[in-house]
């Protein structure tokens, strides 16, 4: 069978016709994120992307599952580890890679680098101060509420961010004003090299913390993109009709080192065994299992991969050939008009 999928858009159109089309799109988006990240990892050593990068490989399901439940005008706020969220929310790949390359075509015009991906037109901002986008996400929800809009806001954050007091402040205020905000904690067990055990008491329970603040909360398998999507969809529906905030804790795992593009299990801060356990339930693998009934799916994956790789090659070429911002732009955008 020959699929007519020459670009992302037509692949979308194509699968929309099929049974399981949604799931295939989930797969497509996760695969695209993974291939982008792996390409970055591959050529980062060229030293042309001269900024810190935090890869999301292993954590594609939270990004895609959550963002698929959102509309374009909903907002998502993210962290240092934002490539997946940015792409899943609909961010422009060329603008992202250009930003990693520090070029004027980057989504910050080169001023931000990998840790400051953003695109207001699709409701997306990321900054690398742990926890700091959580209240900003709540504030966006407040803005929607005051203006009687039906949009919602999502704050992505990691397990370390739950140690910042600002989470508690954010939960309290979101519950107090019943704001349309969804707190997404991607618990990947680590903060840099530090496991949960040196940062949080064993008795601690994020779900209970949220509930004690008056925020509904659920745990969810963060490697199961469909489960993430369903849980988020419910939270979004509730939020849109004034039902207030929800917190979701998604279990997940990162494959690469915290910052940079190497594998670092050899350092010993986490075990090979643990790593393999998580790889066994890889989010792409898990979703593929759901789709195997469809005979063509293996073939489709190959096709998707080709299409995506073309897009990636193209985007890297675009980024690499774009110019650096000129000296004058150092002095622009200090103040908004």
């Amino acid at each position: 069978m020959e699929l007519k999928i020459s670009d992302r858009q037509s692949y979308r159109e194509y699968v929309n016709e099929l049974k399981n089309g949604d799931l295939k799109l989930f797969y497509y988006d996760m695969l695209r994120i993974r291939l982008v990240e792996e390409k970055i990892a591959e050529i980062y050593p060229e030293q042309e992307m001269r900024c810190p990068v935090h890869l999301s490989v292993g954590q594609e399901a939270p990004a895609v599952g959550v963002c698929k439940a959102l509309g374009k005008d909903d907002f998502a706020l993210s962290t240092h580890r934002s490539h997946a969220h940015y792409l899943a929310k609909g961010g422009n790949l060329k603008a992202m890679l250009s930003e990693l390359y520090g070029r004027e075509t980057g989504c910050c015009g080169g001023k931000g680098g990998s840790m400051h991906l953003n695109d207001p037109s699709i409701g997306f901002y990321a900054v690398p101060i742990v926890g700091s986008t959580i209240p900003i996400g709540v504030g966006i929800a407040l803005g929607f509420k005051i203006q009687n809009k039906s949009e919602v806001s999502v704050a992505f954050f990691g397990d370390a961010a739950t140690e910042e007091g600002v989470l508690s402040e954010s939960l309290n205020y979101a519950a107090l004003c019943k704001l349309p905000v969804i707190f997404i904690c991607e618990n990947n067990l680590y903060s840099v090299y530090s496991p949960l055990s040196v940062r949080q008491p064993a008795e601690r329970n994020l779900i209970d913390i949220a509930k004690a603040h008056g925020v509904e909360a659920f745990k969810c398998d963060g490697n199961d993109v469909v489960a993430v999507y369903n849980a988020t969809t419910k939270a979004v529906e509730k939020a849109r009709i004034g039902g207030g905030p929800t917190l979701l804790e998604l279990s997940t795992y990162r494959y690469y080192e915290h910052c940079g593009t190497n594998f670092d299990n050899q350092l010993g801060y986490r075990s090979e065994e643990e790593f393999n356990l998580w790889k066994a339930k890889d989010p792409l693998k898990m979703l593929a299992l759901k789709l195997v009934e469809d005979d063509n799916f293996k073939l489709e994956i190959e096709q998707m991969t080709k299409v995506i790789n073309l897009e990636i090659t193209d985007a890297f070429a675009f980024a690499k050939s774009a110019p650096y911002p000129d000296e004058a732009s150092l002095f622009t955008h200090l103040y908004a008009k």
Partner: protein
Amino acid sequence: MERIITYAKALSEAIDMCMAKDDKVYIMGLGVPDPSGFFGTTIGLQEKYGKMRAMDMPTSENGMTGVAIGSALTGMRPIMAHHRMEFALLATEQIINQAANWHYMFGGKSSMPLVIRMFIGRGWGQGPQHSQSLQAMFAHIPGLKVIMPATPYDAKGLMVSAIEDNNPVIFLEHRWLHTITGKVPEAIYRIPIGKANIARSGSDVTIVAFSYMVIEALFAANILMKLGIDAEVIDMRSIRPLDADAVLESVKKTGHLVVADQAWKTGGIAGEIIAIACEEAFGFLKAKPVRLTLPDFPSPSTPGLTRYYHPRAINIINSVLKMLGKNEKTEEELDIVQKSPLDIPNKEFKGPF
């Protein structure tokens, strides 16, 4: 239009008018709907605009600053108020890393209309954690604007400009100013942020001040006039952007510079102004410039010590006299001994703040 109102009333009018005109403007702060209403500047707003536009808030300064920032990204124009600058220190991360940077670091794609009011200044034994004046900290940060109005007229016009500005503005109100009165037009008007005002023109010496120190500087200038010295008083109004031209022009004329700032000396804005004058008007200065600031010590509580802590008109007068090679005077000699205690803004004040 010779209407005389207080600084507090001028502020309240500016906020009210902006809220009436633009339903995106809202104000939040601990105690916004209180009977005391931020020294009278927020009274009646909740009745008029409802709880979502004039809101009390939890004691979560850091989180709530993030909330204000987030709301600004949806087009809202938040005003956040803090009874004391010290409480806002909990929000330093949001103010400095986030609010100040977003427009620039995202390549101009987002803007951040946000006014953060902080009360500063002295009085009634508030002491080391309730009367610090940390304006230099914020004035050091690119992307912020920092306003320190001294008069009711400026308070209204600069508050309107601050609210209409698409950038984060730190609006600092010295708590001795809220009760002072002055001419204020009823209509809405704006004063450009970053433009100093020649509060008094003169030819012999330039006295640069802002916020409450402008009051002391003008008083000092009047006394100096009686002593035959014609002082120019420059009210900076904003300390970021800083109107260097106004200072330089005056210094080039007078050749003498005194800067008065009710904040610590080392690393303060008074030093910045002196540095600018020396860099840009080198050769025009006929005597070494002088700054009058707080000594580099924490802010004590007891009136037994605050009387020596805060620079006053007499210190400005003597700095000028000395700079011009004249003999210094005492308050007694000048007949300007203040009758009410030195730790309250006026005789009517019965404490506490």
